[in-house]
C-alpha cells in the first residue's frame, strides 16, 4: 500500500540532530525521505564584505571565525594567499609550527566529529569521552596562542609567536594520551554491532560520480579515491612527512567515512610526532610586516587551498593594490556537501539516518554562508 501523501518535517534550525544552525526541509513518506532541501543563511555575517572594509592585518583576525570547529585552515589559507600575492618569505620554523597547529586542529576536529557521529546515532558515551579529551588539545592551543577555539595565530609572514618552553614534550604527551584513548573509542564505537548496523550501507555516494559532484575530503576518500590536498598540492612541508592517504575503505557509506576518519586521526598523530622530530629548535618565526595601516599588497590573485578535517578548504584572494583586500572568497567543503550533495543522497534514506549522514559528510553551516 503506497500512499502518495507526504509529510513535511523541518529539521532545524532548532533541532538537536542538526549540525549547527541550518535547516533541512524533508518531505517524508512513512519513514522514507522523498525530497530534501537545505536552507542556509542563519549564520550569515557577511565576512567577505567585512574584509573589504578592513585592512590586510585586520582581516586576518576575522578569517578564523569563518569555520568554528576548525578555524586554523582559514588562517593558513589567508596567510598563504597573501604571501603568494606579495611574494613574502616565511621562515622555516614558522612553517613547521604552522603544520603542527594544522594537525592539532585536525585532531581536535576529528575528536569533535567522534562526538557528533556517535551522538547522532544515539551513543552519547563516546561524545562525552572524546569531547572531554579534546580539551587537552585545546589546552595546548591555549598555551601556544592564548585562545581555546579561535587562535589568530598563523598570520602572513609566519606565526604570531614561538613555541613556549617545553611545549614539544607536552604535545607528545597529549598525543600519547589521545592515541591510548582512541582504542577505547574503537572498542565502544566501532566494535559495536548496533553502530555497524546503523552506519553500513547508509548515505551512499556513487564513487564514479563523487569527483564530479564536488565531493572532497574524507567522503571522497571513503569512495576509494585517494585525494588529499596535502599530497596533491603540497603546502608547507607536507612533502617531507610520511603519511598514507586511505583508499582502502571504499564502500562509500557512512561506515567507510567513519573508518577513514578513524584511520586519519592516527595518521595525524603520526604526523605531529614527525613534525616534532623535524622541527628546528632555533630560528625566527615571523617576518616583520610593514606598518599595517600602510601595508599594501600588489595587485594580483591567488587560489590557495588547505586540507581541513572535512576536506579541501579553498580561498580565492584578490588584491587590487590597496590596503584592503578586494575580494576574498571562501570555499568550504560543506558548501557542496551540505547543499547539493546532501539533497541528492538523502533521497530514499530513512529519517532516522538523516542526522547520521549529515555528521558523516561534515556539514558545517558557518562556512557555507560565511
Amino acid at each position, binding site marked *: 500500500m503506497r500512499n502518495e501523501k507526504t*509529510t*513535511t*518535517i523541518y529539521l532545524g534550525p532548532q*533541532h*538537536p*540532530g542538526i549540525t549547527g544552525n541550518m535547516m533541512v526541509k524533508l518531505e517524508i513518506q512513512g*519513514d522514507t525521505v522523498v525530497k530534501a532541501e537545505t536552507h542556509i543563511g542563519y549564520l550569515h555575517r557577511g565576512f567577505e564584505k567585512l574584509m573589504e572594509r578592513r585592512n590586510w592585518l585586520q582581516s586576518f583576525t576575522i578569517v578564523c571565525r569563518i569555520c568554528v570547529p576548525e578555524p586554523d585552515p582559514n588562517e593558513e589559507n589567508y596567510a598563504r594567499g597573501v604571501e603568494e600575492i606579495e611574494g613574502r618569505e616565511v621562515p622555516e620554523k614558522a612553517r613547521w609550527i604552522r603544520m603542527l597547529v594544522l594537525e592539532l586542529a585536525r585532531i581536535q576536529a576529528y575528536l569533535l566529529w567522534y562526538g557528533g557521529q*556517535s*551522538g*547522532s*546515532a*544515539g*551513543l*552519547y*558515551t563516546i561524545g*562525552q*569521552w572524546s569531547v*572531554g579529551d579534546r580539551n587537552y588539545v585545546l589546552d595546548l592551543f591555549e598555551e601556544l596562542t592564548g585562545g581555546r577555539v579561535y587562535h589568530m595565530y598563523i598570520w602572513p609572514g609566519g606565526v604570531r609567536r614561538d613555541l613556549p618552553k617545553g611545549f614539544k614534550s607536552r604535545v607528545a604527551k597529549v598525543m600519547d594520551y589521545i592515541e591510548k584513548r582512541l582504542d577505547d573509542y574503537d572498542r*565502544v564505537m566501532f566494535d*559495536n554491532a*548496533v*553502530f555497524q*548496523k*546503523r552506519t553500513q550501507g547508509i548515505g551512499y555516494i556513487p564513487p564514479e560520480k563523487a569527483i564530479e559532484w564536488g565531493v572532497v575530503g574524507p567522503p571522497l576518500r571513503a569512495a576509494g579515491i585517494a585525494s588529499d590536498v596535502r599530497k596533491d598540492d603540497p603546502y608547507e612541508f607536507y612533502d617531507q612527512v610520511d603519511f598514507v592517504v586511505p583508499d582502502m575503505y571504499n564502500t562509500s557509506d557512512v561506515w567507510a567515512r567513519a573508518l577513514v576518519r578513524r584511520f586519519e586521526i592516527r595518521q595525524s598523530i603520526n604526523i605531529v610526532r614527525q613534525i616534532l622530530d623535524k622541527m628546528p629548535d632555533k630560528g625566527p618565526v615571523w617576518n616583520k610586516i610593514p606598518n599595517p595601516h600602510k601595508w599594501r599588497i600588489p595587485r594580483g590573485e591567488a587560489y590557495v587551498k588547505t586540507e581541513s578535517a572535512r576536506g579541501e578548504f579553498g580561498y580565492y584572494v584578490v588584491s587590487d593594490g590597496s590596503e584592503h583586500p578586494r575580494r576574498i572568497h571562501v570555499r568550504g567543503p560543506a558548501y557542496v556537501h551540505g547543499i547539493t550533495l546532501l539533497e541528492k543522497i538523502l533521497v530514499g534514506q*530513512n*529519517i*532516522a*539516518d*538523516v*542526522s547520521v549522514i549529515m555528521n558523516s559528510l561534515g556539514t558545517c553551516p558557518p562556512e557555507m554562508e560565511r
Partner: protein
Amino acid sequence: MTFWQTLGAVLLTILIAFISGLFYMGIRRKVIARIQNRYGPPLHQNFLDVMKLWSKESNIHHGIMQHLAPLWMIAMGVSTLLFIPIVYNSTFWANFTFKGDLILLLYLMVFGSLGFALGAGQTGNPNSAIGVTRGLSQMVGFEIPWVMALIAVMIQYKTTSLTDLVAWQQQHHTWIAFQQPFAFLAALLVIPAMFRYSPYDIVIAPSELASGPPSEFGGKYMGLMMSSGSIFMFAKLALIVDIFLGGATSWLWMIIKTLSLYMIPVLWSAINPRYRTEQAIWSLWRWPLIFAVLGLIIASV
C-alpha cells in the same frame, strides 16, 4: 482490612514507588555520568526537575486529549502498581491483588502508552506523530516475546495470580528465573525496550525527532509525565521481580532487587547506540522471541 488501612497502604505504596522511582533515575544519571567520565548531577536531581516542572506557569492548549494524556499515563502507572503485590505474605501491602491479575496487568501496561499516543497525536507536531508510530511498532515488537514469556510462566505454574507465583517461589526457596530460565531471558532482553533505553530509545530519539511524542508537552504536563514515568517504572520492575526473582519479604528486599534489576538496562544503554525502527523490531523478534518460544515449549511439555 478496613477502608482506611487500604487507603493508607495504597497511598504509601504510590509514594514509595514515586520516590524510589525518581531516585532510581537519579542513580541512573549518576552511573551513566561516571561511565562517561564526569561527576554527574546530584542523586536528587530528578526531584528538583519535577518540582521545577510543576512550578511552571503557562501551558499551551492543543485539544482535550492533549490535556488528558499525562493524566491517562499517571492513572495507568498507578493502577499497574496497585495490582502488584509488593511484600510477600503481608495483608497490608497486598493492595488490590486478586486471582487472575496477571492478565489484567498485561492489559493495563499497554493502555497507558496507547492513551498517551492519542494525546501526542493531537498536538499536531510531525515529530510526535512519527514518534507515536515508532512507539506503537516497538510495542508490538516487545509485547509479543513479553506476553509469551509470561504465558509460559502461567502455563507452567497453572496460575494467573501474582500472589500465588510469589508464594510458590517463597515456599520452595527458589526463583522462577532458575526454574524457567528461557522465559526469564526473554523478559530480560525485553526490559530495555520496555523502558525505552538505548538501543531501543527510538521513540524519544533526540537527534532524529527532537524528543518524539512529548515534543509539545512542557511545564506541568512534563512534570506529570516524569512522575508517572517513575511510578510506572517501579511497577514494571516490581512485576518482574515478583514473577521471576521470587518477590520480596520486605520493602528493603524489594528495593534491592528492583534496583539491581534496573542496573542491567542502564548499563546496557550506556554503551549502545540507537537502533532504527525496523532493526529494533527485528532484534526483539529474534532472540527474545526464540527464548520465549523455548520457554513455552518447556512449560507445556
